[in-house]
């Protein structure tokens, strides 16, 4: 009997097939008649292919049962403990999925983590509040939280106003969330997503309210503020790894290992490039990486 092929595998095969077939054809077309393909972006295409291959290979190995080591991320290990603290104190958990729209990958990462956190919160029967700035994020957040409550077997405990739209303006949103923190004194504040000037306003207010705080953002300019005011901070790539890390699913962790592999390649390129430039032979090597 044939084993049914999972949907993801079909998409993987289809994606690879499309890339493998379309790329050489497009290149040929460009050479032949000066087509619309951006030959000046061929370096990016090579990187995309190498990266995709690495991620898919590691995902395949992870699915096959090969053990993959993931380093500990203390901020994520602390999530369950922080929710437990809120339960013991009888106070709510506040989750802010950033202030960017849903087309930002950081917001999607935040929403993914929200799903994991909501499941833990549902299991502990702890109140959760998720203020959002955009209606699209509201819709996605409500869907994710409802599903988490259903999976935790706590459908009846789900309140549709757990995820709520509070304001469309950056500082109106901040004022609302800060007011909530000072009034309700949530035991745990989790900030995951894209943050801008309001990052410190939120984190300092949470600190003043005595909450345990876990933050994560990929914006380097906001990281110092979170580090100064929060108990745990996920930096850059850790935000994107959080969902996979919390899932403990091999198929998800495979993507992280593929990412690490490409990082090693980039470090090697930096070392080779630095050596070549130091000896005056680096011009051609720099041109390989020129962004257009």
């Amino acid at each position, binding site marked *: 009997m044939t084993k049914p092929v999972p*949907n*993801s595998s079909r*998409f993987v095969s*289809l*994606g690879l097939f*499309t890339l493998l077939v379309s790329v050489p054809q497009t290149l040929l077309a460009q050479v032949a008649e000066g087509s*619309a*393909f951006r030959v000046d*972006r061929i370096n990016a295409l090579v990187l*995309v292919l190498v*990266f995709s291959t690495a*991620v*898919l290979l590691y995902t395949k190995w992870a699915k096959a049962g090969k053990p993959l080591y993931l380093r500990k991320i203390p901020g994520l290990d602390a999530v369950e403990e922080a929710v437990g603290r809120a339960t013991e104190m009888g106070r709510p958990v506040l989750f802010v999925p950033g202030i960017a729209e849903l087309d930002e*990958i950081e917001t*999607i*990462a935040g*929403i*993914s983590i929200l*799903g994991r956190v909501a499941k833990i919160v549902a299991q502990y029967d702890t109140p959760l509040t998720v203020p959002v700035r*955009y*209606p*699209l994020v*509201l819709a996605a957040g409500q869907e*994710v939280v*409802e*599903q*988490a409550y259903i999976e935790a077997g706590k459908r009846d405990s789900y309140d549709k*106003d757990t995820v*709520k*739209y509070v304001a*469309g303006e950056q*500082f*109106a949103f901040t*004022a609302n969330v800060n007011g909530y923190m000072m*009034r309700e004194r949530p035991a745990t504040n989790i900030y995951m997503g894209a943050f801008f000037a309001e990052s*410190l*306003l939120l984190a*300092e207010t949470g600190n003043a309210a005595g909450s345990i705080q876990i933050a994560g953002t*990929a914006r*380097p300019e906001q*990281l110092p*503020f979170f580090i*100064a*005011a929060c108990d745990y901070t996920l*930096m*850059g*790539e850790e*935000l*994107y790894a959080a*969902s*996979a890390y919390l*899932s403990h*699913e091999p*198929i*998800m962790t495979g*993507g992280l290992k*593929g*990412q690490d592999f490409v*990082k090693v390649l*980039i470090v090697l390129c930096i070392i080779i490039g630095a050596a070549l430039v130091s000896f005056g032979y680096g011009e051609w090597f720099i041109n390989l990486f020129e962004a257009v």
Partner: protein
Amino acid sequence: MRTTVPVAIAFLSGLLLVTAFFFRADTFVGGLSQELTVWLTIVGGFTLLLGVVSIVRVNWTAIQRRKEGWGYKILTILAVFAMAIPSVLSPDWSPLFGRAEGSVYDWLFQNLQMPMMATMFATLAFYIASAAYRAFRARSAEATILLITATLVMLWRVPMGEYILDQLPGDIPAFLNTYVMGGFNMAVQRGIIIGAALGAASMSLRIILGIERTYMGKG
């Protein structure tokens, strides 16, 4: 079905946008990707109604239950409609409608919303001071290095501080510029940016291929 269709849409949209990056904007693929961006704006516009429903329901429930500060909730609901209704009415009916200068919307924006936002932003200075005090307390060797470096960089960034540094022996501004900002700081920032970019690409790939479904509440 509830999973397959969204995953298929994510796969096709993602593949299209990635492919479009390698084609010129005036081609079919390039045009289609721009079209998708317009669709996003249109869908976002429709979802505004969801936001209004949410904000009214949450605040109305608080008013009904006479929760602490329920009076402010009435103000919030009034503010939503006071800003929204005159702005969507045609300015042909009255100069108070629409969003042009002299309209109700413009008056509320200029005289209430803008000053309130500016006030919130201005409070950031006080928050920075308290956060800096906590971060720069010299409680360990690392914190002391951070304190000294941050003090020198802050001094260097203001004219009077730069003057003071110029009076000291050695070229401290050049050291700060070359080694601290252009060396350690830039190296760390780039490391974070490269890691974040790879993380974003990896997550995008997981979403496009349907491996990551947590954003839909699955998995």
